[in-house]
């Protein structure tokens, strides 16, 4: 067991290293942002001075080495545009994204479970098709379109909700709705599939034959085993949640990591882009690691 953990940890570190290398080199492939960062009207000499002071004229390998040693000391560099340490900047924005992600997760999990269970119980009837269509809609409607629709209806036409911004509960409703819709459908479909699967198992028949109540069967035996594949895929879905958060934040002017990332890319703010990508990778790798370990703990029958 310990060997497995160490192995996975080692692999995770390798993955992180690979990501940082990939991002660093691709960013620097198209040249440095020195000219873009200086105000228009600056002379060539001034741009050169800036370039030199930022170390952009050194070799790529030197720059990467410099960056790597910094990272290992906890220094991920300073944002070119905000002149603040990127860790600080990211720290400021993370709560907003977390709030959005958690709200989306909460409502979508509850709704998804309900939809999925209804689907499974009334399998292959018109009810099933209806709930599946609803679930599909969540995955079919692009996050940004749903967000825009909500804005059109609730903000432009009804004037009930503000069209964006951060700070009050009413500003959270629409972004969380848009972001969670995809996740809700994914959970609904997964629960449905795995619940159907599980219900066909012998031990369910046995439980029924033993005279256990229906709900006991569903909750204690059916759901618990049905949830396993759901949990397994959380890692992948979380990555897509981050991606969805990106677009949601842009539409609703939500000051989170996603919006910061897009702005950083558009501003060629290399240190910031690198740090955010590393963070995203870290989160993903970390979650997958945790899930793999949880998996083993939850179901000892699974052999490694």
């Amino acid at each position, binding site marked *: 067991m310990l060997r497995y953990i160490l192995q996975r940890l080692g692999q995770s570190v390798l993955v992180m290293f690979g990501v940082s290398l990939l991002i660093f080199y691709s960013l620097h492939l198209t040249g440095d942002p020195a000219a873009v960062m200086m105000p228009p009207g600056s002379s060539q000499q001034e741009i050169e001075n800036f370039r030199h002071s930022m170390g952009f004229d050194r070799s790529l390998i030197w720059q990467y080495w410099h960056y790597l040693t910094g990272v290992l000391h906890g220094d991920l560099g300073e944002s070119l545009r905000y002149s603040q340490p990127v860790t600080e900047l990211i720290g400021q*924005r993370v709560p907003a994204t977390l709030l959005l992600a958690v709200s989306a997760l909460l409502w979508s999990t509850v709704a998804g479970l309900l939809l999925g269970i209804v689907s499974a119980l009334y399998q292959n009837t018109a009810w099933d098709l209806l709930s599946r269509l609803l679930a599909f809609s969540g995955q079919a409607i692009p996050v940004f379109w749903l967000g825009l629709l909500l804005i059109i209806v609730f903000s432009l036409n009804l004037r009930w909700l503000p069209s964006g911004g951060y700070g009050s509960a009413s500003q959270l409703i629409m972004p969380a709705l848009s972001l969670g819709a995809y996740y809700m459908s994914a959970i609904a479909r997964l629960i449905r599939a795995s619940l159907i699967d599980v219900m066909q198992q012998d031990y369910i028949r046995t439980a029924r034959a033993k005279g256990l109540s229906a709900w006991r069967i569903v909750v204690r035996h059916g759901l618990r085993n049905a949830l396993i594949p759901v949990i397994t895929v959380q890692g992948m879905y979380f990555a897509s949640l981050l991606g969805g958060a990106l677009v949601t934040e842009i539409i609703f002017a939500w000051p989170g990591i996603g919006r910061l990332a897009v702005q950083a890319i558009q501003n060629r703010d290399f240190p910031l882009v690198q740090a955010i990508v590393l963070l995203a990778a870290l989160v993903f790798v970390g979650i997958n690691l945790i899930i793999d370990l949880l998996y083993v703990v939850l179901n000892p029958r699974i052999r490694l």
Partner: protein
Amino acid sequence: MIERFSNAPTSFNSVNLSGGFTLGMTVMRIPAFKLASLALLVGLATPAAFASELVIAQTTSATAMDPGFLKESATLVDNLFDTLVLRDANMQLQPGLATRWKSLDDTTWEFTLRQGVKFSDGEPVNAQAVKFSIDRILDPANHAPTISYIRTIRSVEVTGDYQVKIHTSGPDPLLPTRMSRYPTYIVPPAYVTKVGAAEFARKPVGSGAYILQTFIPDEKVVMQANPDYWRGKPAIDTVTWRPIPEATARITALLTGEVQLVDSVPADLVPALKNKPGVHLEQVKNGGLTIYLGLKNDQKPLNDVRVRQALSLALNRTAYTRDLLHGFGTPTGTMAGPKDFGYDAIPAPAQDVAKAKSLLAEAGYPQGFTLKFQAPRRYIASADVAQAVVQDLAAIGVKAELEVPEWSVYTQQVAAQKQAPLYMLAWGSTQTLDADAALYPILHSGEPYSTVNSPELDALLNSSRTTVDPAKREKILQQIQQVVAVQQPLIPLYKEDSLYASADNVTFKGRADSRIPLFDLRLK
């Protein structure tokens, strides 16, 4: 009407539904509604209830508040700090922190400072502060990105408590103008030295009309009126700036009352404001950028002046501004703006397809030629104008292959001179209101954004920067524009208007220098 979508603050004291309320641990039996009405009365009676408030929506968000090290526009910082020289509503230079200034000789200017002005931390605004503020930008160790704006200043000399001499490295007729905009805002030496530049950028202290209260990057900036401001207490108590990059969201916020003033309204969204009660459009004619077609003068066939003239004559500028900019632009024949010093009112050439064709034939291209063309979608309808340009050029036989690159890709290409031989760009002089800023960087050989190499223009541009006598200088600047109109090293297209939208109860007059001086705003 200000509707604010915010939560009421929650507190440890609570009201329970049976009508009593809990203060800490003790339960008191005062009916809740009586208490509420009392609170309301008290609230209404205190002066705080009469605090006037303004919310402004902006396109870009402020990243830092250090006026010497800005990487973006100075709209916010302009209200927190002062400069030695001010610009009034008519764009004339007026005394600011300096009461008088004069040039002692070709390379020395003397400024006499206003006495009795203090920073909001109590420090005096004196000659030491001025020297400190400028030195920190000139210091090469600080890598100030804005150093180019004051590159002519060699040193600042303190000659009295309230007198400084500024030494320039050559004759600099623009020196007073430089002292009216960033980066020459005056900062408090003791405070900056104590907290350091990084902290100063987050918690600035200045002598301006407003004091920074809250600064949450990308979310909001809140400023409070400075009661001890040397020009008098500002009329509006609290101003909040909210960055809303998306135009529809900005305008929606105005329509719902969340904000009362919006900068940068795109021309094609103006119909959304029509017939909406309580809001109106504020138009500053020619207050925006000048859009032009850049040409790589050293490449065939653009190295032939007849070809360049032909390209210019093929274009129907009036149609662009009328149809694509909905009238919010004015065709122009020069890069300088009407409010700039040295402006020469050169009209845009009228479209003349026949002449264009004959010029091309004369230059040896009777069949026309093919050319790569790049235009960004960044400016008002610029991608659509680019397509109209393609159509107009096609009519004289020039096949322009249009590419619309993404803005960050494009800026990098342009700065590295890797753009297409024909490219669209915008330039302006809104901050200096001097033709030099609109001409020099895009016409002088060797400048990063210039694809022109003309010894004649270089000589004129150099002399415009060293001639101190305003009358002579004006003539030189006008001459430059006339040469440009004939030689067409680049092709000016039109000047954008700048459009603001505001609630009817806000008195705001848009300015040609794009500033939003809160001190001049009034709430009805």
